[in-house]
């Protein structure tokens, strides 16, 4: 069983490759797969039908079944079970599947585009249907169900250049997916109530489940919504005629024989056991009846042969679900017989239409004439199938319809008015079926007055063969209906026995059912003869029930709603989004704290030291100054005041690491601000100062106040001891370091730090990309290649006022001569940009600071410092070099590109993470190594220092990238020329210093 499933999907997977070799003949290869499976099914049929249908899977007399656990915690299993019902469906799925694939080999042309994927999808569809009917787990059932939906979507949309195909495919997908998802809810409800998702077990415990009442009633309704949508019942029926945009073999297989039967299958599967739930009968009988009549009525007015069949299928599906929904043994027998008969004749008729369309180029009744003469074999086949559809003896359709009448007559005995209404309606439906069957045959083949015969080439035998086989089944089984009855009887055994059971047969004697059949044929003939009048009457009637229009309204409504909602929320204004986010962040916690009791903040102390109060006031002044400042750099300076104030607070609070880091960062940030913003105007608001001041102030103050409240409350809520009480001991004994903060960073919480330095590297690359635009600009400029005094030359406009003009002139005059070089590249700088004092100080301090940074890095494990502080210190030293000697000086002082530097740093950090694994420790484990050097004494080296060195390198790389991008590259652009071609020449790039 699993082998069949696997083979179907596997061959589908390689089908496109075979198509490349064999062209359309590949369809023969593909058809062989379901054909072989069909043979396997026939050979083993006895074992499926003779088994005890209700036995649990695994018992010796149970139907063949497979159970594998798949997702245990979710109770999802790979359960399959081939009982009589599944086997009957498989007859249709595999048999019709093989014939349709065979037919495709003559239907398509070798040069049709996408024919390979089409073949694969069609075969995969057979696999999905096989899985659907054999699945014994509800989730598996759902998965296969949705696979058929998706494949149906792809197959309907095969003619992707036609808008009708694309649109119909989407409609079918939306409708059936809606039903499928509804069904999933029902299946989950059912599974949760039963405690198992195995269908056979759920059916076995159906009486207890049904007794629990409403919950199961609702679950079953939801499941039935899935069945009703898949089988195109009212109000979902409109997708099926639309799906006729699919190639005709697809219509024959999916939309007549197989997929639309999935809904019937689902009803048949759950009928024994759940047909007694409250809404089962009303829902299925009403919808089935409505569909039967609406479908038949619509079929009568179509002039496209395929649409006649499509509406006929809609009608017949309503008929089938109505019968299966009755849920008694007689109806089940009649329903199953009808389903098989329908599969045979409807598939045949679709294939007939396919041939007509293929050979004549139209399916329009008004354009076809005289085909019965030009293709007699096709006509005979069509006539037999149409007779079966109409219920004319001696066809299988007649046998099945006769049994339906008998079952309904039997049902009417016990159910009074309801039974009679059903009977009358079904007879009405059958009359219309007869009429449209006649219309089909007449429309497709008759010689019509005033029309010349449609040209029609000869139909090849191979093209006709599948039709002949199907028609053969239609005819032969009418004479040996006992065979069908035998294979159906194990299924109907699941229903309670009835007093008077019916049997399939061509001749039962002069019984009432025969009378109904005769009535059907006479009335149907009259309806066909009066077709012109009926048609005129139909055209006058307004469309009473146009579900397609309603569907469009719903879809358009959703479209409009989404546009309206998007227009209201997506305003394109960043501040609007922020206001929404911040308001939520403000209101939700406040609301929650009002709703729930929160601890009252208490134990206030005004300040730790008076100095703290002073610094606090300075920070507040700085912050308010930043708001008031109208000049760009004044605002930046004001923000810096708060930053340096923070450093002071850290120092006072007993956090030396933070104080040092904050101090260094603040300095470098200040430099970066100045470098980046020097190109921008001095005034902050050259134009359009933004409005809504009061509103923004309210949100700001509200947010600040709520943060104060949250902080105070959460601190008052603390009941447990801080986790960090254990840190000092852990740091000293475990991490072999005295600086607890540093050991936390590089050892105890090294993963966090590792993540952080990755972010730093990403941000640095981001800065470089934003400024350089193309690449990171990792090339190295040497001082020897740069003309003396050329860098930044002329960027200082000579002032108009006499003094500065004279000063600049003097500076230039003196500086032209080569001067003793304190810096490597000092001489490249334009003379008026040089400062001898700064150059000397830099010369003296640079190496000292660099050494100090390495010291801070290495001793950081025990004293304040570490990779971050060390890296920033080194960055500061490089900043000095840049400021004193210009961009060539920076390039000279950084022989390694920042990209390489950060890469090496990350590599080193990764190495220190992974290396312990080699020695059998966990990641980021550290070890202390003691060693004695002559002169330096005894030292202890902790391996986590290697990680810290990585941090150091990443931070240095970040600072270099900032200097190179915001400093050097902007210098370069503001001079209005580019030394290399790799830089872009964006307009406005020359807007630089001095403007």
């Amino acid at each position, binding site marked *: 069983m699993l082998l069949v499933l696997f083979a179907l999907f596997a061959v589908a997977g390689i089908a496109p490759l075979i198509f490349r070799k064999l062209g359309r003949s590949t369809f023969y290869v593909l058809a062989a797969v379901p054909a072989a499976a069909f043979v396997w099914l026939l050979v083993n049929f006895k074992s499926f039908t003779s088994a005890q249908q209700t036995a649990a899977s695994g018992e010796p007399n149970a139907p063949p079944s497979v159970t594998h656990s798949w997702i245990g915690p979710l109770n999802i299993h790979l359960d399959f079970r081939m009982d009589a019902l599944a086997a009957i469906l498989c007859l249709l799925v595999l048999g019709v599947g093989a014939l349709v694939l065979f037919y495709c080999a003559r239907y398509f042309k070798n040069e049709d585009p996408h024919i390979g994927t089409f073949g694969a999808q069609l075969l995969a569809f057979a696999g999905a249907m096989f899985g659907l009917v054999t699945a014994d787990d509800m989730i598996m059932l759902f998965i296969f169900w949705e696979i058929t939906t998706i494949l149906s979507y792809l197959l309907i949309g095969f003619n992707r250049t036609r808008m009708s195909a694309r*649109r119909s495919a989407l409609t079918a997908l939306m409708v059936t997916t809606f039903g499928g998802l509804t069904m999933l809810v029902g299946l989950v409800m059912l599974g949760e109530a039963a405690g198992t998702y195995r269908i056979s077990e759920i059916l076995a415990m159906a009486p207890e489940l049904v007794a629990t009442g409403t919950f199961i009633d609702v679950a079953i309704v939801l499941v039935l919504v899935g069945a009703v949508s898949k089988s195109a019942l009212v109000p979902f029926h409109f997708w099926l005629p639309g799906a006729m945009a699919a190639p*005709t073999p697809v219509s024959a297989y999916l939309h007549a024989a197989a997929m639309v039967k999935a809904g019937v299958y689902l009803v048949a599967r759950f009928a024994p056991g759940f047909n007694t739930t409250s809404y089962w009968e009303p829902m299925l009988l009403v919808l089935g009846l409505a569909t039967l009549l609406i479908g038949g009525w619509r079929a009568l007015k179509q002039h496209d042969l395929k649409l006649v069949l499509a509406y006929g299928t809609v009608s017949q599906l309503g008929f089938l679900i109505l019968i299966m929904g009755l849920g008694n043994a007689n109806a089940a027998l009649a329903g199953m017989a009808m389903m098989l008969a329908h599969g045979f004749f409807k598939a045949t008729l679709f294939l007939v239409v396919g041939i007509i369309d293929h050979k004549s180029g139209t399916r329009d009744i008004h354009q076809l004439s005289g085909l019965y003469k030009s293709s007699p074999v096709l006509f005979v086949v069509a006539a037999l199938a149409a007779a079966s559809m109409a219920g004319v003896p001696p066809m299988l359709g007649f046998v099945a319809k006769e049994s339906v009448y008998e079952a309904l007559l039997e049902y009417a005995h016990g159910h009074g008015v309801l039974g009679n209404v059903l009977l009358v309606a079904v007879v009405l439906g059958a009359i219309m079926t007869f009429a449209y069957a006649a219309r089909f045959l007449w429309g497709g083949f008759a010689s019509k007055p005033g029309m010349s015969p449609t040209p029609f080439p000869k139909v090849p035998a191979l093209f006709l063969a599948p039709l002949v086989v199907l028609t053969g089944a239609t005819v032969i089984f009418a004479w040996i209906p006992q065979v069908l009855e035998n294979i159906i009887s194990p299924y109907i055994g699941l229903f309670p026995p009835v007093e008077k059971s019916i049997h399939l047969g061509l001749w039962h004697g002069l019984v009432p059912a025969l009378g109904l059949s005769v009535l059907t044929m006479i009335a149907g003939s009259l309806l066909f003869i009066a077709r012109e009048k009926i048609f005129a009457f139909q055209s006058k009637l307004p469309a009473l029930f146009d579900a397609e229009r309603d569907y469009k309204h719903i879809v358009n409504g959703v479209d409009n709603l989404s546009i309206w909602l998007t227009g209201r929320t997506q305003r394109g204004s960043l501040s609007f989004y922020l206001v929404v986010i911040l308001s939520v962040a403000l209101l939700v916690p406040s609301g929650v704290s009002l709703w729930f009791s929160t601890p009252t903040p208490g134990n206030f102390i005004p*300040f730790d030291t008076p100095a703290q109060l002073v610094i606090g006031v300075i920070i507040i002044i700085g912050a308010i100054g930043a708001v008031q400042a109208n000049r760009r750099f004044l605002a930046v300076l004001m923000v810096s005041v708060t930053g340096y104030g923070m450093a002071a607070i*850290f120092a006072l609070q007993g956090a030396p690491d933070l104080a040092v880091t904050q101090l260094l960062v603040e300095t470098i940030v200040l430099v970066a601000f100045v470098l980046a913003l020097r190109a921008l105007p001095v005034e902050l608001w050259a134009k359009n100062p933004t409005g809504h001041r009061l509103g923004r102030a309210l949100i700001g103050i509200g947010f600040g106040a709520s943060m104060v409240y949250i902080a105070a409350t959460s601190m008052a809520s603390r009941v447990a001891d801080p986790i960090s009480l254990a840190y000092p001991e852990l740091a000293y004994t475990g991490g072999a370091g005295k600086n607890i903060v540093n050991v936390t960073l590089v050892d105890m919480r090294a993963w966090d730090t590792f993540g952080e330095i990755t972010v730093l590297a990403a941000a640095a690359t981001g800065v470089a990309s934003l400024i350089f635009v193309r690449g990171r600009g990792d090339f190295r400029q040497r001082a020897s290649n740069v003309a003396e005094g050329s860098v930044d030359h002329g960027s200082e406009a000579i002032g108009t006022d006499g003094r500065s003009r004279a000063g600049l002139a003097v500076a230039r005059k003196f500086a032209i001569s080569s001067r003793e070089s304190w810096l490597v590249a000092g001489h490249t700088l334009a003379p008026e940009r040089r400062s001898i004092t700064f150059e000397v100080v830099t010369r003296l301090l640079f190496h000292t600071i660099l050494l100090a940074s390495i010291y801070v890095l290495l001793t950081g494990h025990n004293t304040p410092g570490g990779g971050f502080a060390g890296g920033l210190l080194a960055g500061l030293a490089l900043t000095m070099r840049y400021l004193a000697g210009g961009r060539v000086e920076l390039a000279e002082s950084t022989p390694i590109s920042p990209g390489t530097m950060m890469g090496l740093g990350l590599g080193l950090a990764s190495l220190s993470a992974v290396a312990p694994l080699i020695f059998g420790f966990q990641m980021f484990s550290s070890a202390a190594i003691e060693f004695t050097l002559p002169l330096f004494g005894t030292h202890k080296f902790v391996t986590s220092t290697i990680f810290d060195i990585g941090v150091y390198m990443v931070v240095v790389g970040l600072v270099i990238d900032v200097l190179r991008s915001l400093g050097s590259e902007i210098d370069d652009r503001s001079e209005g020329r580019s030394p290399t071609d790799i830089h872009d020449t964006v307009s406005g790039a020359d807007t630089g210093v001095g403007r």
Partner: protein
Amino acid sequence: MSTNVTLLIVMGVLFAVGIYLLLERSMTRVLLGIVLLGNGVNLLLLSTAGARGKAPIYEPGIDPGDYTDPLPQALTLTAIVITFAVTAFMLGIIYRSWVLSSADTVEDDDEDLRVGQQSPFDFEEDSPIPEDTSEFDGDEDTQATTKNPGEARA
């Protein structure tokens, strides 16, 4: 644990001013707002450490509670450096925005607005389609006249 009023108020002011600036249209002011918010957050972290204590440099025999809580410090330290990286990145954005449009303002996104103003009519979904009674119109080997050449299979 004790709650330091000074730190809380300074934090509140930094948050309020930071948010106020964040809602501006001038990108420079937005960035300054972000920096102030970062400082506010760092102060919040620090104040959760409780009252001041000894610097967290291990010395034998000292009660762990006597140190300033080292965990918020480790968090703050990384926050400081990340704020630096974010600031540098934002500076890059401001510079690029200035180069491209000579403005450092946060403009409304036209694309966003266009989404809300589009017509609900969609050609693919809503245009009428001609009736279509053959898959094979336009094919060479069929004898019937081509009815919809434009809709013929590609």
